[in-house]
């Protein structure tokens, strides 16, 4: 396959992950357990949605893709390539916090790996978002530690959340058939390499928090090939509800 087509697929799955998780995080606006967390989740939602917009703009401007709004708000479910972790409803705060911890470390290793990418627009974006992500992982790590050290009830909630999220999070690293070519072309190192780096990033935090890391037994795959949970379609319906009233109009 042409390299540009492979890069397009890579950027699409990255952008979709960020859009859908950003959308989910934004659902905490007004509902946070403390006002400060409400603000934090809103802020991270903005960053994620902003990243997806930037990625879709690269698709549009560099790779002949559609207009970013059309691409985000009009695409059909099967054309989305987000992983299942991002699609799950916000659930309770422990779930959302653990998802944020696991995803944001994954995002960090991914962008870090692209600091030297041969595809220049990705390299430039990686440089830009790195600073933001530092605060996201700092936030996630601090909260995980705090809640794990605050007594049995909250510790158990965090361990359960980790158990519930872990296989889903492994699904972030569902390999594409052409990862080797992308790695050989120095676009990025491929999913398996990122998975290893991710484990290295999260393991010390989990140890410090006395959490037991589950084994990678049954990673939840499918999202990268357009197979999704039942939660995605309703999310997309909601997201596009106003835009689709008149996709040609400006809003």
């Amino acid at each position: 396959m042409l390299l540009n087509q492979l890069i397009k697929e890579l950027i699409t799955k990255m952008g979709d992950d960020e859009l859908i998780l950003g959308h989910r995080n934004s659902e905490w606006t007004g509902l946070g357990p403390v006002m400060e967390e409400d603000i934090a989740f809103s802020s991270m939602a903005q960053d994620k949605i902003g990243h997806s917009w930037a990625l879709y703009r690269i698709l549009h401007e560099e790779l002949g893709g559609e207009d970013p709004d059309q691409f985000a708000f009009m695409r059909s479910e099967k054309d989305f390539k987000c992983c299942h972790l991002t699609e799950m409803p916000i659930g309770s705060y422990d779930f959302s916090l653990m998802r944020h911890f696991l995803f944001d470390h994954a995002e960090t290793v991914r962008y870090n790996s692209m600091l030297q990418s041969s595809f220049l627009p990705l390299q430039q974006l990686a440089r830009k978002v790195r600073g933001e992500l530092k605060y996201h992982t700092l936030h996630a790590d601090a909260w995980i530690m705090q809640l794990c050290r605050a007594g049995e009830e909250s510790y158990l909630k965090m361990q359960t959340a980790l158990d519930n999220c872990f296989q889903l999070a492994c699904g972030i690293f569902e390999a594409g058939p052409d990862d080797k070519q992308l790695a050989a072309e120095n676009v990025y190192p491929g999913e398996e390499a990122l998975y290893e780096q991710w484990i290295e990033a999260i393991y010390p935090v989990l140890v410090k928090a006395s959490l037991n890391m589950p084994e990678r037994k049954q990673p939840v795959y499918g999202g990268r090939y357009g197979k999704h949970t039942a939660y995605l379609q309703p999310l997309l319906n909601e997201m596009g509800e106003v835009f689709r009233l008149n996709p040609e109009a400006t809003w």
Partner: protein
Amino acid sequence: MYGGGYIFEEPNRVQQREEQLHDDPEKLAAFEMRIAKGEKIEPGDWMPAEYRRQLIRLIEQHAHSEIIGALPEGTWITRAPGFKRKLALIAKVQDEIGHGQLLYNAAETLGKSREAMINDLLSGKSKYSNVFNYPAETWADVTVIGFLIDAAAIVNQVANAKGSYGPYCRALDRICYEESFHLKQGHDAFIELATGTPGQKAMLQDALNRWWQPIMHFFGPPDKVSGHSEKLMQWKVKMASNDDMRNQFLEAYVPKIRELGLTLPDPLLNKNEETGRWEYSDPDWDLFFEVIKGNGPCNKERLDVRKWAEEHGRWIRKALMKEEAFGKKAMPVA
């Protein structure tokens, strides 16, 4: 946004009047002199009990209005059309929650904890701006709120920022700065619909018709029926009368609405060139008081959302308290 112009009165004020009588007359005179000279009152300064009580009520209601006011627009974050609007709306609602935080902090300097304030909100004892007890039915409602309710709140907040209590004024200065940015975003989204397709324009007109009465209610009952303002104005707790603020709002925004080719659902709404004041039909004040009592279209829904957040967040707040008691020691794992 979001501070409503109207400070809701609690039914029983007898006890406070007695407290007021017990204020040391010399201290009271000195206090009133300071305010007359334009000095700010700070948390450690002597102040009459009634001044403290009224300020707590005012700032607390303002804080509640920020966090409850985040809800009608917040429900549209997930539906905002396009990246630009989606990001702007999240940022805006996030700011409102931040304003709530600032204001709770300002009220805490007067001796009431955030927790006590939230409890009073949830029990219905403490009020918030009535305008948030109406539903945002379409995207156009979001633009009407973002433009006109924000504009109305700014009229009120700019006035209050010149008040006498230092911490509240400083919080308001910062809030007004951010609000002016929200107003620009709201205006932009409003104009987009007003100048858009016939469908968009109809949607906006419909929302405007529905929101006009709550907007007229926003500044509170007419001065002729709204008593108890004199002392509050002397103490610079209340900085402008309800009718004056309403007039200021109409003066600034009715022409802007009309020049976009939109209409307002009040045949009497007109500026009297002789008096220089706007005239309008009386909005339904019985309805206004019904909504305050809790019988508006969304009172229950709004409080239910806050209750959900409080209940689901309880273990986290508990865990935060415990952590301090544990002195940052790790929880041993069995």
